C-alpha cells in the first residue's frame, strides 16, 4: 500500500481499544461481586489467577514474537479473556486448571491465529471447552450458594483446596440447570419445592438469579456506553426466550423450564453480554449480528435440553464462530445507491 500520511479525519473520538476493554472488565464487576457473595472467594480467585496468567502468557508470546510487549498489553484484550475465563470456571477448581485454561486461551486460541483481531474463535470459550472435555469431573462441580449451604468456604480453606488439593467437604451442589435436567420424573413445581437450590431462590434459583441479574446490569451499562451494539445479545436472549416459550408446557416432568428460568440460570447473561458480544469472533454487519445472536440462542436451548452438557453457551458460541464468516457473506448491508445488497461472493468483472 502507498505510504500513509497524516490525513483526514484529523479529529478522533476519545474511545480507544484499551478503554473499550477496560470498560468491559469494569462491567463484569457487579457479576463478580454477586458470585463472590453467594459462592465465596472461589470465583474471585479464579478471575485473579486467570487474568494474571493470561497477561503473563500474552507478554511471553509477544516477547517471543519480538513485538513491543507493553504496546500489546495495553489493549487489555488478554485481561478481558482472563476475566471471562475466570468467571466461567467453577469456583474452587484446582489452580492448574485455571492456568491451563488461560494458556490454552491465549496461546492456542488467540496468538497462534495471529493475535488480537485474528482469532476466529472466542479464546475464553475455546479454553472452557477444552477443559470441559478433558476434565469433565473438575469442571462440573459448582459450589453451593450461600442460601443453602449456610456458609461459603473460608479463604484459608479455599486456598488449601485450590493450591493443595485438600478438598472441602460438601461445598458443591447441583446447579439449577443440572437439577432441572435430571429432574427424576418430577413435575417442575414439585422440583422447586424439593430441591434446595431451586426452592431457596426468589424466581429461578438461589444465587444464580442474582448473578445473572448483575451481569445484565453490567451489559446494560456497556450498551449505554455504546461499547457494542444491542443486536447480538438481544437477538440471543430473544431466541432463547422464544425457544423456552415454545417448549414450555407449563411444568411437566419433561418440560425444559420457563422462559424466566432460562434467562436467569446458568451463564445466560454472562454469555449474552460478554461472550456473544465479543466482536472479533462474531459476524460483522448489523444483520449478521442479529442472525449470529439468534442462532446462538437457539443452540443454547437445544444443548441445554437435548444435549449432554448442562449448559451450552460455550458450545453454541464456538459453533457460531465457525459460521460467522459464512453469515458475513450473505449479510452485506445494502450500500447507498445500490438496489440490493451484494453478495460478497459475487465476482467482479476484472
Amino acid at each position: 500500500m502507498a505510504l500513509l500520511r497524516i490525513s483526514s479525519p484529523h479529529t478522533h473520538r476519545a474511545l480507544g481499544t484499551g478503554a473499550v476493554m477496560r470498560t468491559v472488565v469494569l462491567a463484569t464487576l457487579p457479576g463478580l461481586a454477586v458470585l463472590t457473595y453467594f459462592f465465596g472467594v472461589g470465583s474471585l480467585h479464579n478471575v485473579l489467577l486467570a487474568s494474571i496468567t493470561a497477561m503473563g502468557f500474552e507478554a511471553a508470546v509477544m516477547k517471543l514474537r519480538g513485538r513491543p510487549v507493553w504496546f500489546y498489553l495495553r489493549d487489555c484484550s488478554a485481561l478481558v479473556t482472563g476475566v471471562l475465563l475466570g468467571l466461567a470456571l467453577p469456583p474452587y477448581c484446582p489452580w492448574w486448571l485455571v492456568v491451563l485454561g488461560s494458556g490454552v486461551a491465549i496461546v492456542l486460541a488467540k496468538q497462534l491465529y495471529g493475535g488480537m483481531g485474528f482469532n476466529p474463535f472466542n479464546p475464553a470459550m475455546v479454553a472452557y471447552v477444552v477443559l470441559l472435555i478433558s476434565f469433565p469431573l473438575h469442571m462440573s462441580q459448582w459450589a453451593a450458594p450461600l442460601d443453602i449451604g449456610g456458609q461459603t468456604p473460608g479463604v484459608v480453606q479455599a486456598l488449601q483446596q485450590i493450591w493443595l488439593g485438600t478438598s472441602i467437604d460438601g461445598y458443591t451442589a447441583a446447579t439449577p440447570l443440572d437439577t432441572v435436567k435430571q429432574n427424576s420424573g418430577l413435575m417442575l413445581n414439585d422440583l422447586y419445592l424439593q430441591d434446595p437450590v431451586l426452592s431457596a431462590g426468589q424466581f429461578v434459583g438461589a444465587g444464580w438469579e442474582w448473578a445473572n441479574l448483575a451481569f445484565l446490569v453490567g451489559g446494560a451499562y456497556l450498551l449505554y456506553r455504546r461499547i457494542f451494539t444491542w443486536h447480538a445479545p438481544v437477538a440471543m436472549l430473544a431466541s432463547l426466550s422464544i425457544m423456552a416459550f415454545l417448549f414450555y408446557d407449563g411444568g411437566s416432568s419433561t418440560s425444559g423450564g420457563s422462559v424466566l428460568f432460562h434467562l436467569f440460570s446458568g451463564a445466560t447473561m454472562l454469555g449474552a453480554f460478554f461472550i456473544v458480544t465479543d466482536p472479533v469472533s462474531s459476524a460483522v454487519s448489523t444483520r449478521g449480528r442479529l442472525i449470529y445472536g439468534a442462532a446462538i440462542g437457539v443452540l443454547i436451548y437445544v444443548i441445554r435440553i437435548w444435549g449432554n452438557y448442562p449448559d451450552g453457551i460455550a458450545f453454541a458460541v464456538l459453533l457460531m464462530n465457525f459460521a460467522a464468516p459464512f453469515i458475513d457473506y450473505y449479510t452485506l448491508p445494502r450500500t447507498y445507491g445500490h438496489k440490493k445488497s451484494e453478495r460478497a461472493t459475487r465476482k467482479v468483472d476484472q
Partner: protein
Amino acid sequence: MELIKVWDIPGGVHPPENKTQSLLEPLGPLAIAPQLILPVSQHIGAPAKPIVEVGDQVLGGQVIAEADGVFSANVHAPTSGRIAAIVEHTVPHPSGMTDLCIILDTDGKDDWTPLSPWEDYAERNKDDLLARIRESGIAGLGGAGFPAAVKLNPRANHPIDTLIINGTECEPYITADDVLMRERAQEVIAGTQILAQLLNQPERVVIGVEDNKPEAIAALRKAAEGSAIQVVSFPTKYPSGGEKQLIQILTGREVPAGQIPAAIGVVCQNVGTTAAIYRAVRFGEPLVKRITTVVGEALQTQRNIEVLFGTPVNFVLEQHGYQHKKASRLVMGGPMMGFSLPDLSVPVVKTTNCLLAPSKKELPPPEPAMACIRCGMCAEACPVELLPQQLFWYAQAEDLEKLETHNLFDCIECGACSYVCPSHIPLVQYYRAAKGEIRQHRIDKEKSDRSRRRFEFRQDRIAKEEAEKEAKRLARKKAAEEAKKKLAEQKANTPAEPKPAAVSTQDTDKQRAKLERLLASAHERLKKAEQPLAEEATDEQAEKQAASIKQAQLKVSDAQKKLDAFIASQGENNRQASSTEANDPVAAAIERAKAKQTMSPEEKLRNSVESLQKRLQKAEQKVIEAKDNKPDMVEALQQGVDKLKDKLSAAQNELAELTPAAAAPATPANATPDVAQAAIERAKAKLAMSPEEKLRSSLESLYKRLEKAEQKAAGAKQEDSDKAEALQQGVERLKEKIASTQKELAEATLSTVAEETPQDPATSDAASLAIEKAKAKAAAMATMSASDKLRNQVDSLQARLEKAQARLEKAEQENDDNIDAFRTGVSKLEEKLATARDQLAELT
C-alpha cells in the same frame, strides 16, 4: 410554516462542533496580499488556459486564464497588478503537488474593469444567464469545485423536479456558510431564484440547513418569505452535508451508484455558489473571492474573512497571529475531510472553505494504530452502509476484487469510520490508497487488453498476408509452367519451321513478354528470398531460406538463359524484319532491369532503414514497459536501443549518400553485367553470410519465444495453474538454447572476423547485440597468440560440427527435406576443421 418531512441517514457521528470560536468576531475583510498565486485549475475538469503574458498589467475582474471547454472555468484577476510569472507552484492538494499558477504582483490600487450589471436579470433568457455564469468562472464553493454552469444545464432526459441548496455545513469548525447565510440571506435567496429559473422552476426548491444554525435559518426564512423556497432544518449529524446524504435527508431518494443527482431529478448547489451566481448575474462580478473560516487555537484571532483567491495561506495566517510552534498541523478544510498542507505558501482557492490551525491539544497527532478488533463501530458510523472493517481487511490483503464487491467506490471518504475506530486505524487512508490502486489496475488492464488486441490483429494480418503470398506464388508457378510448356512447344516448332518470320510479331512480342515476366518474377523471388527472415523464423526456416535462395538463383539464371536464347534467335529475325518494334520490348526490359539494378542497393537500404526504425520503435516501447515492471532490465534494453539508433543513423547516412547518386542519371554502361548475374552475386554474398545470419535470426526468434514463454509462465503462476511448472521448464530450456545459440553466434562472428571477411553493412542489418559482444571477444582474441587463436577456432569448429551432426542425424530420422543442406554444412565444417587442425599442427 408547513411541516416538512425529513429522512434520516444511516450511521453518522457527532464530533464536537467547535463552531462558536470563529463566530465571536464579525466577518472581516482581509488586506490585499502583495502577491497572489492563482492556479489555473481551481475546479474539477480541464485546467484553464492562461491568456496573459508575463509583464502584462491587469485589472481586477479581467480574465487571465480562459476556460478550456465546458468542464472548465475562467480564472479572473482578483485585483489590479502586474503578471509576475506563469510557473509551476505548489497548489492546495493532499499530495502537495505543483500545478501551473499565474503569479500576480498586486499594486494595491484595486482598479477594476468596468462591470456590466443586469438590473433586469429576471427577464434574461436561459442561455444568456448560463453564459454569464460560465464566464464568471463559478465553480462549486462547497467541496469539489464542480463548474456550476454544467450542473445547471442538465440533460434533457433528466427532468429536474427538486432544487436543493446545501447550507448544511456539517464539518466541525467551519462557519463560512453560516456567516454567509446570516449576513447575505437575500443574496442566497435571490441566487436560488435564478437557479430555479434556470431549471424551469422545479416543483420543490429547498434550502437545507442543520439545526445547529438557528440564526442562519431565521435569516433565510425571513428572506424567503413570499417565495416558494422552503428552508428546511434537520438534526445535526456528520456527514449530512454530503451531497448524496443531503439528497437522502430531504427527498428520501438515493442517487444510484455511479450516477449523478440529476438522474433522480435533483440538482444540488452550495449556498456560497448560489450567492456567487447571484452576484455574477446581477452585478457581473466574476468569482474572485470567498468567505473562509480561519480558526484554531494556534491563532490569536479566529474569525471568518472574505479573502481574494490566490492569497497565500501564510499571509492569511500572519494576519491572524499564527503561532507556528503551537500548531499541530495546518489543515485546509474541516477536521473530518480536510487535508493537511505540506507547505504554507499555497494559495486560497475557490474550494477553500476553512483554514484550520489547531494546537496540539486540540487535534493531537494520531495515535498508533492497533489491530482491528472487529467491533463494528465503523460499520455503524458509515453513512453509506459499507463494512469499513471488511474493506480495511481486504485493503490490507490487497484483495482488489473483494474491495470492489464490497463497494469500495461508494465510500465518500467522510472519515466517520476512522473517527470512531477505537483502534485508531486510519481507515480512510487505506481506502484512498486502495482506490488509487484499483484505478491504476483498471488502466493497466485496459492497456494490456489493447496491446493484446493489437497483437491478435497483427497475427491475423500476417497470416492473411502469408496466405495471399502463397496463393500468388502458386499462380506464378502455374504461369511459369505454362510458359515453359509453350516455349518447349515453340522450340519444337522452330526447327520445323525455319522461317520464324512467319511467326507474327504479335506472337514474338507475347513470347518475349512472357519470358520477361518469367525473369522478373524470378528476380522477385530471389529478392524475397534474400530478404531477412521474418521475426518468427526458426533455424529450420533459416535453412529453408538458404535452399529457396539457391532455387531462386537457378530459376533466375534459367530464365535469363532462355531470354538470351530467345533474343538471340529473334535477333536474326529482327535483322531480317528490321523491325524496330520487335527490338523495343527487349530494350525496354533491359532498361528496366538496369534500372532495377541501380535502384536495388538504395531500395535495400531503405528497407533496412525501415526495418531498423521498426525495431527501434519496438525496442523503445520495451524499454518503457520494462521501466514499469522490470527495472533491472532497463539498462540492457536501453543499450540495445542506443545501438539500434546508431545503426539507424548509419544506414540513413548511407541512404542519403546513395540517393543523389541514384537520382543522377546513372550511366548504364552497355557492358553492365547482366541483371541475373548481379543477383546471383548478391545471393552468393548472402549465402556466405548465412550461417551467422541464420544464427542471429534464430537467436532473435528465440528471444521472442522466451519472452512469450516467460509471460505465459508468469500468467500461469499467477493463476496458480498446474501448467506453471511445465511452462517454467520450457522457459529454462529456451534460456539454455539461447545461451548456446549466443555462443555459436559469437563463434561464427569470430570466425568471420578471423577470416577477415568484409561485412556488408547492407546485409548485416539483422545484426544484434551479440555481434558487439563477439567483436569484443575478437578484439581480445587479437591479442592472443596465433596458436591460441587457432586452438580456439578448432574448439569452436568442433563444437559446431558436433551440433551440425546432431542436427543432421535428427533430420535423417525425420526425413527432413533439408537433409542435403545439413549434409553440405557438415562436410564444410569438417573441411574447415581439418584445415584448421593442419594449420595448428604446422604452427606447433
